[in-house]
């Protein structure tokens, strides 16, 4: 476990602010203890300092993971969030998309959301805005990126993709081995 370099920390916070905006502060500035981001084998983990101290007695090779895996840095230094980050992203999400019950399963199999599958959408979301995807009864299902802004959605054809799929809770089964 090592500290994120300045470059990578910046990438991480920029990426986080795409989804939760100014709420990024709340991930660091918590009342219930100090939490920090750590890097281990190119993956970013969100750990409380108390657990981090305990993990110090294990070597690099023995350690599989500590805390919650937020995502992984690619070789070209791009960050991709894993579905495990949803637990922290969903409560702070500023832009949301709700999918119809009929499209829920489709989304959980990794499909993009077309306009027909869209139940509700937050006002004012621009194009390529990171969003958290909910079911109609407010259960977070995953996250994605808007393919069209909210206003464009209204005029779009029913089959056009409105939200690009990025990650969904189906990955807990589909990508079990690479997730943590």
């Amino acid at each position, binding site marked *: 476990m090592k500290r994120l370099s300045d470059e990578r920390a*910046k990438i991480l916070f920029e990426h986080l602010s795409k989804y939760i905006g100014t709420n990024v502060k709340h991930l660091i500035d918590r009342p219930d203890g100090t939490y920090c981001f750590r890097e281990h084998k190119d993956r970013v983990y969100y750990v409380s300092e108390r657990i*981090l101290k305990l993990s110090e007695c294990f070597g690099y090779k023995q350690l599989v993971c500590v805390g919650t895996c937020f995502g992984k840095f690619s070789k070209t230094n791009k960050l991709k969030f894993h579905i495990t980050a949803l637990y922290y992203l969903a409560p702070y999400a500023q832009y949301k998309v709700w999918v119809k019950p009929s499209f829920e399963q489709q989304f959980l199999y990794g499909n993009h959301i077309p306009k027909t599958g869209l139940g509700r959408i937050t006002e004012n979301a621009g194009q390529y805005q990171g969003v958290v995807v909910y079911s109609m009864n407010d259960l977070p299902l995953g996250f994605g990126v808007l393919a069209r802004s909210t206003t*464009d959605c209204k005029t779009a054809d029913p089959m056009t993709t409105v939200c690009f799929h990025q990650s969904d809770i189906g990955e807990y089964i589909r990508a079990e081995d690479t997730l943590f």
Partner: protein
Amino acid sequence: MDVVKEVLAKHQKELDKYKPITVEKHLECRLDVGSLLITDPNDFDDRELRDNKEEYLTALTRENTQLLVNAIWELPTERVDESIVAKLPEPTTVLPRLRKPPGPRPLTKWEKFAKEKGISKKKKDKKTYDETMDKWVPTYGFKRAEAEKAKDWVLEVPQNADPNTDMFQKKIDLRNEKVAKNEIQRMKNIVRAKKIDMPRSGYLGPEAASSSQLLTAVTVAKSSTASVGKFQNKLPKEKEARGLGIKELIPGGKRKQSHITQTPEKEANLDLIKSVLNKKPKLDVSKAVSMEKRDNRLAREAEAENEPGKKGGKKPKGKGSRKAVGKKSKGNRGQRAPGKKAQAGRKRR
């Protein structure tokens, strides 16, 4: 009787010439017929060795050799071209070697990769059929170049290239480059096989260096201050060099950071977040338009609610604004104003 004696004496004389083939030994000798080796474990006779050393040693050697020859004669023999031949068994004595036996040839980088990926070499045919020339052409070796020359007697100049380029020269250059590259790779393979530490090439200059090499050079140069580059300013989109073996080049880069720092990480992170969030947002025209539209709509709706007299309240009071768009024709209801003087200038019909 004399004759008999004479014959016997002669025979004895002849026998004396040859020594007996049976040898008496106190301890049995170890024989390894395969490597034609005999080892005598018996002690030397001290007195004999002191008195007539040469004779004794010669006799001893003869006896031992006799034993070896006896053993050879026990092997099955056969006659090949008037000479008797015996086939020696496998040698049993292990002979020590001066140098260590050579191992298998170290694999080249490609061979190693191919082995990992399970790529096997496909053998090319010596000759392939060329459809344009309508005959069999050697793929490599003797007369290949001649065949190629006959085939590519004319070369196309691509549309985006300068029309005056010599495509033949270009082809030759390309080939020479390939040969040179192959030679370098061969050298690298040798270096790799011998496990020699090659010095790094360093900064190759602006023409030759690749972008990653330039980036490394910049990173190294920046961190080569007394404070290992801590107070060096960064360009807005500057990247840091990454990759295998680059950390070793950067002064101070090897130093391992502690998991938990003395300076509170929380504050540092919050500062970083602040700088990320305070970034001047890009002007997103479409977003601005959509926000403006939404504000207008909200304003209109609020206005409509305030005026309960109108039905539905949806009709916009847009008469004033419409005027700006263009004059509507009067539709035969306009006033002619005959008293008014006509416009000065050219008469319009």
